[in-house]
């Protein structure tokens, strides 16, 4: 198993109230799979993604990624883990506004030991012609492509996508999903996508549904669709 999550619990204390974000969550994923985590707001999907990404800590349980229990890692080791193993794609792209497209990808390449050539990455996500533009000079879809380029330039083992199509129109969203599946195939990158959009689960090998911090459904998708084929 590439990812093995065992009985994790996570609660947030906000003053007098304690909120259970995740309750005894367990799941597994194989290397190279695309997993889609579905659920309404407040179901705990972002918390789960943050924990897998080494951004958030858990109260109990184990999170084993590529044989390493990241729960046991200290802050420095977690930084190293994010640096070498994880690629992030955000809903609102989170590009550095005063850096060009090329420089935004360089942000990640800069700390990678063996990055892919930036021009090659830009070419593969189809935005090489905009490499000297600034983010605000691009459409939402183009910005998300830059975000993908930034995520994959350091050849991560795991690509974590937080509502990657949430801010995009239908056409742009489908193009981004197509690009993510291409990345998955080309680099054999394991991908986890969290979304509200149930239609996106069509491209997944594994579909996990979360409700109130608990897994309500965890199924292997026997009918994986191409990104172009899914509709909503």
């Amino acid at each position, binding site marked *: 198993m590439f990812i093995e999550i065992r009985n994790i619990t996570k609660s947030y204390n906000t003053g007098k109230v304690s909120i259970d974000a995740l309750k005894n969550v367990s799941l597994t994923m194989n290397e190279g799979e695309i997993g889609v985590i579905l659920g309404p707001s407040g179901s705990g999907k*972002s918390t789960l993604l*943050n924990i897998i*990404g080494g*951004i*958030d800590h858990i109260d109990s349980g184990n999170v084993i990624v590529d044989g390493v229990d990241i729960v046991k890692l200290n802050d*420095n080791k977690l*930084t*190293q*883990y*994010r*640096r*070498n193993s*994880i690629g*992030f794609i*955000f*809903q*609102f*792209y*989170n*590009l*550095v*506004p*005063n*850096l060009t497209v090329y*420089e935004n990808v*360089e*942000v*990640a*390449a*800069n*700390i990678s030991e063996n990055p892919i050539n930036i021009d090659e990455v830009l070419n593969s996500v189809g935005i090489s012609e905009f490499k000297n533009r*600034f*983010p*605000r*000079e691009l459409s939402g879809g183009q*910005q998300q492509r830059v975000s993908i380029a*930034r995520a994959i330039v350091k050849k991560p083992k795991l690509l974590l996508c*937080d509502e990657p199509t949430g*801010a995009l129109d239908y056409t742009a969203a489908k193009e981004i999903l197509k690009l993510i599946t291409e990345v998955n195939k080309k680099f054999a990158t394991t991908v986890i996508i969290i979304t509200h959009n149930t239609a996106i689960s069509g491209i997944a090998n594994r579909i996990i549904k979360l409700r109130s911090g608990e897994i309500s459904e965890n199924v292997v998708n026997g009918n994986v669709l191409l990104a172009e084929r899914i509709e909503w």
Partner: protein
Amino acid sequence: MVINKMIKRTIFEYKSQYIGSIILIIISCMLYSSFNIAMLDVQDNLNTFRINNKLEDASFIIQNSITNINQLEEKYDLILEERKSIDYTNEDKSVLRILESTNKIDKYAVISGNPIIGENELLIDKGYAGAHSLAINAQLKINDTTFKIVGYMSTPDYVYPLKSESDMLKSPKSFGVAVVSEKDINKIGKGLNFYSVKFNKDNISEFKSDLSTDNILIQWINKKDNNRISFIDGDMKGGAAIGKVMPIAILILTCILISVVLLRLLKREYLVIGTLYAIGCTKKELVRHYLRYPIIISLIGSFVGTIIGSLLVKPLLSAVTVYYNLPLLIVNFDIKYTILSLILPFIFLIPVTYIVINKALKLSPLQLMRGGNNKTKVSFIERKLNLNRFNFNTKFKIRELCRSLPRAVLMILGVTFASMLLLIGFATKDSMNYMVNNSYSDIYKYNYEYNFNALQIGKVDKGEKRSLSSFTTKLNSKDEDLIIYGVEKDSKLINLVDKNNNVIGFDKVIITKSMSDRYNLKIGQSIKVKNKLNSKEYTIKVDEIAKAYTGNIIYMPLSEFNISNGYPENSYLQIDSAYKLDIPADSLISQTSKKDIIDGYNTMLMPMKYMIGGIAVMAFIIGLIVIYVVTSLVIEENKANISMFKILGYKNKEIYSLILSSNIILVILGYIISIPLIIMSVASFFDVMTKDMNITIPAKLNISSVLISFVIIIITYEISKALNKSKVMKISMADSLKEKRE
């Protein structure tokens, strides 16, 4: 409005930025009120003292005693008094000048203790008494007479106790003044007779002509040329300039600081503002709300600053009156400066912040709710920058610098101002050092200077002859005073060099560089001079300009000097010598040793070291505030980037380097700008200070001072960076995930 409740919360949330602004206003108001009120009081004290105690207009030495004082007083409507002084050399080789108590002119004022009533009572200047541990009621033996010190005193003609009226630096360790009764002074010795005069009419020339009819004037010194009297006026002007220029400069800096902080606040609250607009709030209401920030800051700053400033008036006044031997007669809290100090921050801050707020609130509710028009606008400079050849870290830092022009301007101005403040002390010290070295080491090679009280004729066995006289000349349509020295042609004890450091011989007429600069005099130009003592007029042509900064001085061959002035051949008034000579004290006006001058300089440097330290602390605080606030603004603006960098796996050290280190370029730039600015400022400060003095102080700044100041500025920068590191640490990675940007 209910939103006003946000003010307190916002100020507490971003307290460092607002506290920084308040401290700057406090410093500004403190300087403004303390300096202006104290300087006004010093001026009032000085004026009152001069009027009440009848400051002389001039003093003179004449070959034969005047026997018709009453007649002259009546004829010219003036006050004239014969005076006597004896220079008593103490066991520690310090000189105490004993003055005869006067009745009509330059009357003493008792600073503490009692006036002279009985016999063998003596009043002494506090500086000398302090330097020699002489308390009131102590005994002091002068020659064979033992005096009781009955108090400390000041006379209007020795407010700055200098041995010679042309000296520049007082030295309480080596020179002081005392007053005894007329009867007692005769017990001590013969001494030097001189006269002080106060005119009621503009008839100085007629009076001098009258004196010269059947007598010879040896020396005539107008109060303007007497450094003991006039030095304080220059310092008052300097103090007043500091009290006006510095607070305004700090306020301008605060204006920019608060504008940048407010702009950031407005940007942060665009969504709230847009929503408030959308639900019907008017622009007027919102402007009024945001104006409360500068009003609160100004109110706290000006109130606290003015109170502290008012509390500092008395200590400052005491310090000035102790440094200058001046009785403290009046302490007034000038209401004009107190009110101005209270309202000055408002005058500066409110209009500027109003413009900033008004401009920001011009956007439509929709634009505001979307985060404003220029949220991520790419500037022309950013677009045109070609950074391909640099590595990512350098690219990021350069882009960061270009991101916010007001922020960069604030950083540069803040560092420039703090550096200038820091360099003021160093530049003053270096300039004084240069002037003293130039005058007393480079130019004057003798160790002793003997000034006679009557013209001497003939050859001298030891030392070199020199003569001098005061002159007036019309330069730039104004009457200007100058001194002409007659120097032996083969003088070895005076060394003048030209701009190329070539030695100039004394077979020529040489003027000082300071005189050439002040009146734009060039080689070959002629000037008509009039001898102040005998009113003889003649024209001299400038042959050379010497690198000397001691004031309006012309050097010419002694033989020509005597001929031009109608003095006897081979006559002289002064002997310069490398060794101490045995010349009877009663034939001298004064004798000066170079060591005394150097000692005086070192004594004067001591308080200057404290001054440099004090100013450096203030510069450090101002620099720290500005750099800290700008750095915290950089962190705030980069919050999302920092969060994202953390997610991407950047280590804290790498983030500090990217986010916090870019400002080093602005810090260095600000520092470099400050160097020419401080040299220019110090030069004009010295110009104001020495306008009515007989010296020029060239503005100098040594490399060592530049380096020390640079290290201090860099330390300030590093400290503010270190203080901000925790802010970077606190930024959560989760902040980036759901933040809507672009």
